[in-house]
């Protein structure tokens, strides 16, 4: 069965938004702890962390894992 119009639109967006230097999941994972601290402290995402943010926007799995990490870290001070 051919892909639907919605899937074509999604495919076009996937193609149009791709960047050559995107982080992959492993690289994102290596930096996710420091990125979580940036978020929790309400700091501005600097240039070096922009690639992490972009990867999280593109990868639902890493984004979900990041959200789990944030939830785990909230309240860690009281441990």
């Amino acid at each position, binding site marked *: 069965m*051919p892909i639907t119009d919605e899937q074509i639109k*999604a495919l076009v967006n*996937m*193609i149009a938004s791709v960047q050559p230097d995107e982080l992959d999941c492993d690289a994102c994972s290596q930096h996710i*702890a420091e990125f*979580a601290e940036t978020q929790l402290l309400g700091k501005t995402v600097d240039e070096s962390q922009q690639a992490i943010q972009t990867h999280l926007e593109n990868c639902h799995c890493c984004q979900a894992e990041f959200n*789990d*990490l944030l*939830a*785990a870290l909230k309240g860690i001070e009281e441990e």
Partner: protein
Amino acid sequence: MAMESDSENWIADLRATGEQQAEALAKLNKILVGGLRRSFQGKGVDQAFCEDIAQESVLKILEKLDQFEGRSRFTTWAMSIAIRRAVSELRKKRYQNVSLNQLSDGEQLEIDVPDQSAEQPEQAEERRNVLLKLKELIEGKLSHKQRVALQGGLNGMTVDEVALHTGSNRNAVYKLIHDARQKLKRELEKDGYDAPTIQSLFS
């Protein structure tokens, strides 16, 4: 990068022996269990699961102590390892029942190119040309694995789901899809279809 003193203390305590190390291990285990509970409560996870994951994670953290570079606090880094382990375990359970129908052999990544339309003939013709080109590229330039991964993504599967069903891993599937997107983008650009143009045609 300079390490915070609290992190330095953690590393020193965990590298120590005897009571000093035992206390640090127990404290770390407690922090991880607490974090896992906060993160996964209400998601069908019980205390035993959190304790098992925390225990396994502590061992992993001890193995990886040399890899801690101090870019975050030690406890944040440790928690990220525990979360990854928990997510990995939960993923295995959760995705066991995902239908393989969503992930055929990639041959179904088929684009139906419509006949020429009388409405807005210029734009319809351009869209048709892009679809023809995309169809040709997908069939001729993408590998079988890339087509399968891309199809899974378009069918709403996550990279983890695709990875589980193709015996791969998250990173490899992400890279397959990324490389496919890049290849398609480059080839479309060669024909004069840059990103803004194709997006406006299909918006």
